[in-house]
């Protein structure tokens, strides 16, 4: 919260767009403004009405370097925008640095994302230390189509203006905490010696040489990848990682997404009855990759680039009672199967489970 808890005295606010950036179509700027305002009106009783040629509560403008508010902009990057807390005059106003590369997508700086953040200030919020929050100070891109206001921001704004009038109260995503015993994973893969744990729009990255776990947005490294990756595995020999969601998969060559992806999973030999892959791991020593779907699994020959004959088979018949597999990866000869908050260590040579741990055992909690 902003010190002094400033808030608007009315829930029905006005806004005005004073000028436009030449880098975007005017209609795209207006759409970004409306979408950004909706982020906050969706979860509070607040309404926003657009006005022309008169003073509005929230004046939105693109400004250049010193624009006479004692907070000069600094050119490309650095400070992207700023906004003032609720109040008369400049209170509530949003200033955007005209020298930034404003866009509607993942290149440059997404105007909608920055506007939604600044409007949080216009309504009385200050910065949040939750790295997943919209009100976190540094910029991070999320596909506007997938954007959901995080719970941290919902809690903050509702503490000022109360809940929305809708019967069902909106909720938002929370930021995964590495040492949260409840933490489960969407997918896990190794990547050049590191282990990458996928969860929602985040990835937790564990480097063997670093004690702490690094949390990042998937979009930070791979803006074209969707959130909620469902399966992933590394083909160490080819230095490739395959990532799966629904009936599509992407290929990482090194650290970059290879052109021409995503491709249908059916190119790998799955029957059309398979709609998604739950988990996968690849056995470097045999060149075989194992795909887990519901209670069955397929085996794929990386050299022949085709599914082996005689599959699918029942998971339980060859891997034991590990239940549905959320995620899997192989490391140092063992395969680790994740089911909810439990992790099974499987020895492929002995063909049996040799250990059971918590899902977060890799994070030095």
């Amino acid at each position, binding site marked *: 919260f*902003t*010190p*002094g808890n400033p808030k608007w005295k009315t829930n029905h606010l006005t806004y005005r767009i004073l000028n436009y950036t030449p880098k975007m179509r005017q209609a795209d700027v207006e759409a970004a403004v409306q979408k950004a305002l909706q982020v906050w009106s969706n979860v509070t009783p607040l309404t926003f009405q657009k006005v022309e040629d008169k003073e509005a509560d929230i004046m939105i403008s693109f400004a250049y370097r010193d624009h006479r508010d004692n*907070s000069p*902009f600094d050119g490309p*990057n*650095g*400070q*992207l*925008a*700023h*906004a*003032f*807390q609720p*109040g008369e005059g400049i209170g509530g106003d949003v200033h955007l*640095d005209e020298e*930034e590369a404003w866009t509607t997508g993942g290149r440059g*700086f997404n105007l909608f994302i*920055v506007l939604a*953040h*600044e409007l949080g*200030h216009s309504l009385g919020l*200050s*910065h949040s*230390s939750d*790295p997943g929050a919209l009100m976190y*100070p*540094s*910029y991070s891109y999320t596909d506007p189509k997938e954007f959901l206001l995080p719970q941290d921001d919902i809690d903050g704004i509702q503490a000022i203006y109360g809940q929305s009038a809708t019967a069902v109260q909106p909720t938002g995503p929370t930021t995964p905490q590495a040492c949260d015993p409840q933490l489960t994973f969407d997918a896990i893969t190794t990547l050049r010696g590191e282990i990458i744990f996928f969860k929602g729009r985040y990835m937790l990255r564990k480097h063997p040489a670093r004690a*702490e776990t690094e949390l990042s947005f998937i979009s*930070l*490294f791979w803006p074209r990848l969707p959130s909620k990756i469902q399966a992933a595995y590394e083909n160490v020999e080819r230095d490739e990682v395959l990532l799966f969601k629904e009936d599509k998969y992407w290929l990482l060559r090194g*650290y970059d997404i290879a052109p021409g992806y995503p491709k249908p999973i059916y190119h790998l030999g799955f029957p059309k009855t398979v709609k998604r892959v739950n988990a996968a791991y690849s056995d470097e020593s045999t060149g075989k990759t194992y795909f887990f779907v519901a209670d069955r699994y397929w085996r794929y020959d990386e050299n022949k680039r085709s599914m082996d004959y005689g599959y699918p088979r029942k998971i339980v018949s060859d891997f034991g009672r590990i239940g549905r597999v959320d995620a899997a990866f192989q490391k140092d000869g063992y395969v680790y199967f994740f089911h909810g908050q439990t992790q099974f260590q499987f020895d492929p040579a002995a063909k049996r489970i040799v250990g059971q741990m918590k899902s977060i055992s890799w994070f030095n909690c």
Partner: protein
Amino acid sequence: FPVAPAAQDESKTLQLVESYLQKFYGLQRGHHPHLRRKGDSRLVEKLREMQAFFGLQVTGKPDLDTLEMMEKPRCGVPDVGQYM
């Protein structure tokens, strides 16, 4: 993966740190050059505050992770105090 920023010389680093803490953590703009020594306790105190806010390791030193965070594009509103 983003490559760590090239090692900068110390005075540049100090300038980046000072400017960041003045803008976003209320470090007073000092006019006492002799205070510009790295050991300036006020600077260290503000640096620790910034590191705590971002969930970085609180070292009070401008380590690599801290500099990386300071170089990220961000909002111009300070992280502490009011913005009037």
